[in-house]
């Protein structure tokens, strides 16, 4: 597949680069893990294949071979040969077709998964792009016009639906079944983000704790894959805390001395030294990843136990979805 126009920031990502944080190598990987995982399931990928992560403005891509793709995550009004196509379902595309995107209507990050995955060399066991160190992905950088990407071999599961859909007359064919996205990447622009108390929660004034959970915060444009900056009521510590750098995680909410909130995300550094007021519950990671600058959120405290149960429930949903999709892939295009 050939990149005709690159879009705003289109990178190759997989689940992330794990096991190397202790060497100072950041995790990277997709921002919206749910959209990524569902995307791979829909095209029969089961080995953590790499996809394209697109940001706000999608690329224009010409397919040089017949392919099976799916688009998940944020809705950027995808079109094939200028006709709108639906998301969250496998789509067969005949060679020579062009995929374009229009307005970003829902969410902020969209994902293009292809059967067989996008193949680039694995660096430290991952294909994710680490932009700052120019490592991984496509030559360590965001995609540009003229880049040509290689696709891996379709799985047997993917092949079945590929055959079924490819019998069609038009140059592309969507499956008539799809994965419900409501519990996935329904980007809730006035959303409630569930959090658990961070390690320094008790170091903040009672007033700041209340402001944090009772007032609205707005995502600022100074936000990227490394972290989101929120503006709103400033938070204060009851006394100065001597912080020693330690590991941080996706969704860690820290408060530098000026009092604004920073949520650490996929390209976060491996360690951090600011007081941590809270940690976003894993169940809401996708919701956060899809926030647009200007979006308003409220943080709602849940207990650690609740966060665990919510995570496990989400994983069970995903397992059911995987079983459902396997069944559909086996049936092919029949409904």
């Amino acid at each position, binding site marked *: 597949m050939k990149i005709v126009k690159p879009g705003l920031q289109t990178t190759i990502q997989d689940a992330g680069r794990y096991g190397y944080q*202790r*060497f*100072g190598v950041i995790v990277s990987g997709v921002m919206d893990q749910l959209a990524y995982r569902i995307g791979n399931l829909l095209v029969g990928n089961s080995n953590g294949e790499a996809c394209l992560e697109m940001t706000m403005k999608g690329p224009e891509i010409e397919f040089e071979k017949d392919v099976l793709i799916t688009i998940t995550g944020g809705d950027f009004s995808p079109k094939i040969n200028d006709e709108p196509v639906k998301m969250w379902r496998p789509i067969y595309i005949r060679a020579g077709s062009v995929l374009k995107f229009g307005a970003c209507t829902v969410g902020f990050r969209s994902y293009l998964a292809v059967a067989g995955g996008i193949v680039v060399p694995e660096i430290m066991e991952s294909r994710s792009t680490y932009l700052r160190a120019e490592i991984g992905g496509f030559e360590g950088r965001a995609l540009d016009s003229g880049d040509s990407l290689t696709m891996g071999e379709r799985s047997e599961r993917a092949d079945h639906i590929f055959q079924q859909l490819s019998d069609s007359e038009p140059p592309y064919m969507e499956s008539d079944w799809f994965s419900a996205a409501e519990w996935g990447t329904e980007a809730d622009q006035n959303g409630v983000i569930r959090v658990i108390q961070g390690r320094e929660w008790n170091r903040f004034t009672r007033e700041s704790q209340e402001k944090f959970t009772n007032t609205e915060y707005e995502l600022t444009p100074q936000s990227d894959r490394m972290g989101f900056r929120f503006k709103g009521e400033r938070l204060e510590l009851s006394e100065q805390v001597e912080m*020693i750098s*330690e590991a941080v*995680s996706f969704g860690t909410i820290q408060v530098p001395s000026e009092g604004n909130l920073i949520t650490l995300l996929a390209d976060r550094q491996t360690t951090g030294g600011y007081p941590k007021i809270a940690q*976003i519950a894993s169940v809401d990671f996708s919701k956060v990843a899809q926030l647009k600058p200007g979006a308003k959120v409220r943080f709602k405290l849940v207990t650690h136990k609740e966060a*665990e149960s919510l995570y496990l429930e989400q994983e069970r949903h995903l397992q059911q979805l995987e079983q459902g999709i396997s069944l559909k892939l086996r049936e092919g295009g029949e409904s």
Partner: protein
Amino acid sequence: MKYELHPLGDSAVIVHLGDKISEETNVLVRNISLLLEEQPLPGMIEFVPAFTSVTVFYNPLKVLQNGKRNGKRKPDSPYELICGEIESAIHKIGPENKSEARNVEIPVCYGGELGPDIELVAQHNNLTTDEVIEIHTEAEYLVYMIGFAPGFPYLGGMSEKIAAPRKESPRLKIPAGSVGIAGSQTGIYPIETPGGWQLIGQTPLKLFDLDQDPPTLLRAGDKIRFHPISTTEFEKLKGGQE
């Protein structure tokens, strides 16, 4: 061994080993890291050592499945299960798990084009550049942790006599291998990045090299020493790596 366990969200736990940066605490960090490396916990994704802590990242689902496999009906919380695993792992640490510190020599070509700020550092401390080099090379440094950038060592042990403030406006590009001073810290830039450290020299060694396994020259717990080399030696050593 005294330690405290705290959750970092619903998929990680921080093992706190103290609240002061010290060599003693660093030994504990290193011993636990060694154990986790040799005997990874079931369901563990990775661990991240820092100044006074080791953080274990885990997959809650796998931790739970492993707990069930081992016939544990209770607790049903992945966090409690992993904490149990960490506690029994820590109790297993015996003399054989204690890692020896590695000694690493870092050749540095001081001053000149490779260390453009050495005179500033000297002036700031009323020293000659030779004295700055002498003080910088006579100390032994401990790698407390690797972070900030791939292979970047947080070093302890620099003399206050050569401390110098950061540059007011950071350089946009600092070459890989640059040795710098910021406040009372010294460090080495493993990859080309922007940065505000005062640069006093450069090492021809690669601190981050994807062809090596592990990809970093230094590891938390290493003891390092710098020694001065000439420009000719620098070029020769650098050339020998290409």
